[in-house]
């Protein structure tokens, strides 16, 4: 793109915006081209950073404290605890699921680490402040897992993405992140979404508003998990 009379590519204009233009003619072209200079001006954004972005950097997210669990502890937990939770189990808990569109038989395992003890969550017992929760997912063909925390009443739930990542094509994927219950609320909600491509808050809101519409519902599998939270038991824990 050495000819100043031609429009530079969008890539070149983006690089110019960052002060890294490759071609010396780009600056002079911009001086005489409103189309390209408008594009460069539009790249600036004064919008505040959205929550999903700040959540990438901060270890906490609405009561959940992210902690990376070292591989050894993952292995120890996995060895100590059998794989858990066929999908039918949570389906029996009416308030814990919204709906499911099934492809194969995905499942989610929920591991709780309380002080030095690790165990599988039984689906009903309350969690305690300080507990750490880690998930394992058997995707059964789904390629990605996205975890949202949710808040608000059921008719107006707000979702915030707190994790997303790939799933192994076969077998169980242990998510590399654990969340710590900080006890700020007596209830914590997680929404586990399996999909073939990235899923954001917008899609989830749209989908939950109209779960029966026929827009690729076979491409999503969802499970909502509700944890009741109570204060820690006494010191012997």
């Amino acid at each position, binding site marked *: 793109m050495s000819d100043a009379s031609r429009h530079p590519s969008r890539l070149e204009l983006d690089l110019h915006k960052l002060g890294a233009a490759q071609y010396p003619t780009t600056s002079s072209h911009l001086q005489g081209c409103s189309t390209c200079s408008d594009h460069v001006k539009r790249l600036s954004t004064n919008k505040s950073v959205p929550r999903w972005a700040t959540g*990438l950097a901060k270890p906490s997210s609405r009561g959940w404290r992210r902690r990376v669990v070292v591989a050894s502890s993952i292995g120890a937990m996995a060895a100590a605890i059998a794989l858990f939770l066929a999908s039918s189990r949570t389906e029996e808990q009416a308030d814990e699921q919204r709906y499911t569109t099934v492809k194969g038989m995905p499942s989610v395992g929920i591991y709780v680490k309380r002080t030095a003890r690790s165990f599988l969550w039984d689906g009903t017992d309350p969690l305690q402040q300080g507990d750490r929760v880690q998930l394992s997912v058997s995707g059964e063909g789904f390629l990605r897992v996205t975890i949202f925390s949710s808040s608000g009443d059921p008719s107006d739930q707000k979702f915030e993405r707190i994790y997303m990542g790939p799933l192994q094509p076969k077998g169980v994927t242990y998510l590399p992140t654990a969340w710590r219950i900080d006890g700020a609320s007596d209830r914590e909600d997680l929404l586990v979404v399996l999909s073939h491509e990235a899923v954001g808050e917008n899609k989830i809101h749209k989908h939950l508003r109209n779960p029966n519409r026929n827009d690729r519902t076979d491409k999503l599998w969802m499970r909502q998990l509700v944890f009741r939270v109570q204060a820690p038991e006494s010191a012997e824990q």
Partner: protein
Amino acid sequence: MSGSVELGAPLLRSGTISSIDSEHIEAVYGRYFGIIWHKCARMLGDSDDAKDVAQETFTRLWAKRETVRDERAVVAWIYRTSTRLAFARYRAGIRHVSYIEHEAEGPVERGSTPESLVLLRDVFVKVLAIAPRREFECAVLNRVDGLTQSEIADVLKVSDRTVRRLLTQFQQRVDLVPSSERTAS
């Protein structure tokens, strides 16, 4: 895609994004998200899909911050990744190309009337939906983003010759569309 760039902004303190601690995500967002968003909007329109792909691209960029080393590499990575994510949306039936860059190099048809440009865009989108991934990437980078063949080769990390071949193949697919669909009646 080489050479060091002087980075006056506080983002890349010592040449890598990783040198910024997590509190500086605001700086990374402010610096790159506009580029990501406009790139996605060109491919997918001002849609929820564009927002999702932009969000996914930024999230991946943040995760890659320890390995991306200069501005050119960052922007090339953004173009490569977001285009590949958009490909999945096209395969899922999402077709929202907002406009086509008519100044790009290569076999770009130059319509002279708004009607012919609309037809060109419709044919382009139709062919995009069926093109293999590599052709899709080259076609989008060339005709939507206006990249030269050399720039595409840098972004996709392939040779110029491969880019020429893929663009030619894409054009052949366009040519297979009946002429009645490619010209204003």
